[in-house]
């Protein structure tokens, strides 16, 4: 394959016939460009779906309760269900192996006050693992820890926008704020990808909240992160099992969705996975169709080119070129043109995708469209093979040229 002299011959032939070479390369460049754009758009859609769930951890599930809508075991409908610490402890101990993160959650609406600035905020009382479940990112300071919970400390982690509301540009870390009448120490400031609502919020230890406001062991919700080593299907099954288990424990009718339900990210993940698979199947089909059209196109042009060069091949043969050397020359030229043109298309496509960036996210749900390095390597291999296929038929034809016919005086 690597023969410096043959490459020289090919470069000369391409270089001296630029228009012809560009024309042959055009179809492939165009096909690859389309292929790249299609693939990029598909991955952009995929990125959008992924980021739509970016607010929370991918493996999150939560148990929430409301009022019963079905009578069960002599209990009436309309009964409010209350989760307690014992329920939380039961789930986390019973399913320890299947759980990566665990946190209870209590919802409160409290006024938070600093000097003359005050406002009412959504305050969540949680366990330390909640940080990972909610994908809370610490900008300053730290999140709640186990010691805070053990000591029922009056500490608070505030959102970026809470800090902005109350402190403006001034530092807030280490300052004390008044939360519903009690003084809390700010130990951290966080941001969250989930949007403004998620950043105009504060977190306090669940134990502190239970002690201060009611002195009970009530919780509103149990949040879990299932073990990431579970398959999607296993995770869905796990969610169902927890749901059945909890209904039994709390004397709820097995079909009462309203009284207790488990919302499981695994189900959404599965849906997105199926959607993406279908999308890539369609794109792959269209993309490879385009590519095949490109290959046939270049092959056609090469056949035309061979006709145009009949005389040249006749001369070469008269001067001692073997049919094999003609085949190798044409195929190599085809591979070179295909690869260069394909790379041009690929680069152009990548540039366009980069230029698009996130500008289509709002309207068309395409976020950060791009092609992965794996696709690029795959495309290179496909291009070389395409060049081989595209060049082979014309090359065979070129090798069959009879010098006498080619050189007949004209």
């Amino acid at each position, binding site marked *: 394959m690597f023969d410096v002299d043959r490459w020289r011959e090919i470069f000369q032939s391409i270089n001296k*016939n630029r228009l012809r070479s560009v024309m042959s390369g055009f179809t492939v460049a165009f096909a690859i460009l389309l292929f790249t754009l299609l693939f990029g758009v598909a991955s952009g859609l995929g990125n959008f779906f992924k980021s739509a769930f970016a607010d929370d951890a991918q493996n999150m599930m939560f148990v929430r309760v409301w009022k019963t809508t079905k009578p069960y075991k002599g209990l009436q409908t309309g009964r409010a269900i209350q989760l307690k610490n014992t329920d939380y402890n039961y789930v986390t101990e019973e399913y320890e192996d299947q759980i990566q993160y665990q946190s209870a959650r209590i919802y409160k609406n409290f006024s938070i006050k600093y000097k003359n600035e005050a406002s009412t905020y959504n305050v969540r009382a949680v366990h330390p693992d909640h940080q990972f479940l909610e994908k809370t990112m610490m900008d300053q300071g730290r999140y709640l820890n186990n010691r805070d919970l053990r000591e029922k400390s009056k500490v608070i982690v505030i959102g970026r926008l809470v800090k902005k509301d109350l402190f403006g540009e001034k530092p807030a870390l280490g300052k004390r704020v008044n939360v519903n009448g009690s003084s809390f120490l700010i130990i951290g400031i966080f941001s969250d990808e989930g949007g403004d609502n998620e950043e105009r919020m504060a977190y306090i230890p669940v134990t502190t909240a239970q002690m201060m406001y009611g002195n009970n062991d009530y919780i509103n919700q149990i949040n879990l992160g299932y073990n990431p080593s579970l398959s999607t299907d296993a995770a869905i099954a796990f969610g169902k099992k927890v749901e059945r288990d909890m209904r039994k424990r709390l004397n709820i009718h097995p079909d009462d969705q309203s009284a207790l339900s488990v919302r499981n990210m695994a189900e959404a993940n599965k849906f997105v996975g199926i959607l993406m698979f279908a999308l890539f199947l369609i794109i792959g089909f269209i993309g490879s169709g385009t590519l095949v059209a490109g290959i046939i196109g270049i092959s056609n042009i090469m056949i035309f080119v061979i006709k145009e060069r009949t005389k040249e091949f006749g*001369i070469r043969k008269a*001067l001692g070129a*073997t049919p094999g*050397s003609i085949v190798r020359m044409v195929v190599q030229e085809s591979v070179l043109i295909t690869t260069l043109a394909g790379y041009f298309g690929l680069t152009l496509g990548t540039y366009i995708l980069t230029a698009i960036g996130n500008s289509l996210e709002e309207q068309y749900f395409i976020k950060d469209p791009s092609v992965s390095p794996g696709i690029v390597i795959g495309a290179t291999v496909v291009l070389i093979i395409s060049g081989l296929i595209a060049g082979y038929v014309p090359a065979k034809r070129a090798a069959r040229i009879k*010098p006498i016919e080619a050189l007949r*005086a*004209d």
Partner: protein
Amino acid sequence: MIKIENLHKSYPIGKDSLHVLKGIDLHIKEGEFVSIMGSSGSGKSTLLNIVGLLDIHDAGNYYLNGQLIKDLNEKKAAILRNKFLGFVFQSFNLISYKTALENVALPLYYKGINKKERLKVAMDYLDKVGLKDWASHLPNELSGGQKQRVAIARALVTNPKVVLADEPTGALDTTTTDSVMDLLKDINDEGMTVFVITHEEEVANQTKRIVRLRDGVIINDTLTKVAKAL
């Protein structure tokens, strides 16, 4: 050098076949300067194609440099052409996008000689045909006579056993015809076997032996005055 015994060749035309060569016997020794004369349709081009290994004969024997030519596949024919034969064509047949020097060097590429050596040898032969200064010109920048001299240099560059020239002066005017014939004579004087096909008496008269062909048979085979004068 070239020995032909009872050579036959016919071409199929529809259901019929056209019998072009009807039993040719010809012996050309090393160092001869032979012309084949004949009107069009006499079979002279067919004979040249067979001698030049560009076509295959139907019956009879053909020995090139003592080797019986039989059952040649394309690859073998290509190698033999490269090794033993140099071609000069009426329409020059230079590759248009290659310079004079590159055209001359091309047969050496197929012989597997490295680029440096190729260009050096090619330059020597261009010098020999008086076109050293034109080495970097493309064919369309050369006159007809110059093109044919480049083609002759290309035919000689592999140092073949026989130079086959098919109407080498057919596309040239009288003056350039003479200069090309002089060049072929010089080559012959150095010992090269030269085999010319022509329909021009003046050209044939400058060779040493004339073989006349009509309707696929040799009707006359004589030495010219040039040969007798030696």
